[in-house]
């Protein structure tokens, strides 16, 4: 048996309450129920999580490497978008 008839899923695990789901990897499965089972087996047996999301990889809309410049460059010349741009008044010492 090969994985060519299986779908690819991306796996997100929330390690503990209060934290965000984090992308941990991907896996092959027949459907979303099986993907959830496998996600538990493959990604959570040692560091127990409290919640898992699986998403079909094809359903993720991702930015393209080619678009990197138009997507991310413009903010480089707008330093005022960063908090560090603003000088702090002397009165505030512990920031």
């Amino acid at each position, binding site marked *: *048996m090969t*994985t060519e008839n*299986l779908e690819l899923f991306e796996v997100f695990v929330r390690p503990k309450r209060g934290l965000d789901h984090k992308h941990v990897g991907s*896996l092959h499965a027949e459907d979303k129920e*099986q993907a959830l*089972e*496998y996600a538990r087996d493959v990604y959570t047996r040692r560091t127990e999580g409290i919640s898992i999301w699986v998403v079909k990889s094809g359903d993720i809309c991702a930015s393209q490497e080619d678009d990197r410049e138009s997507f991310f460059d413009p903010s480089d010349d707008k330093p005022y978008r960063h908090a560090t741009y603003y000088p702090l008044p002397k009165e505030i010492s512990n920031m």
Partner: protein
Amino acid sequence: MTQPSHNEVNRQQDLISYFVRLGDDAIVLGHRMSEWVSNGPFLEEDIALGNVALDYIGRARMFYGHAATLSGDGKTEDDFAFLRDEREFQNYLINELPRGDFAYTIVRQLMVDLYNKHFLQALKSSADETLVAIAEKASKETSYHCRRSKSWTLRLGDGTAESHRRMQLAIDEIWGYSHELFETDDLEKRLINTGIAVNCEQLKALWLADIEAVFNEAGLTIPELTWTVRGGRSGYHTEHLGHLLTQMQFVYRSFPGATW
């Protein structure tokens, strides 16, 4: 200090034997499942099979470990797993059958997992608190095992003509080994009277209803075969157990005390 009475000694021996045979069921099946590691149909399923194997081996450690404590003669869990011969193992025969193809493995798992679901549920009412604690832990694993084997049975039974054929073939080959799961011997009868052991005879109707429901949905049928093989609880095994034990035990026996 008073010597324990003859009856007390026998009761203690019965309890140890019960723990050991439950350990035997778990380790033999766990070992069979572990044979899939690196041979699984694809990576994710390989890992899942390995996880189930580990659940069973962990269960064997709990049963053997407590048997060793009760023995109080310096025995460890390893002595039970690695230093006993075929005739001393009392596992049900269904657990020692070869792993077969994937359909065969899934059919055996479905039968054993559903059996364990009802067995462990009943074991939670045992008068022995260690058995209750093990049952609590193991039944969580077993509900996951049942989900897995049910969904694979549906997928393969109701899949292609070839997967259906293999599933039905496996059922026909394994069915005759399912009957002894619901028989009790003298040891178990004595322990049932003291509220310790599970009366397996009472589990059959529940188990059969579960199996029928899954088979119906998967388009599979219970064979009308009348043959039955039994003997595991008395130490009479198929030819497969000896081979399994030589593989499982040879490192421990060749290098006693080896650690890594």
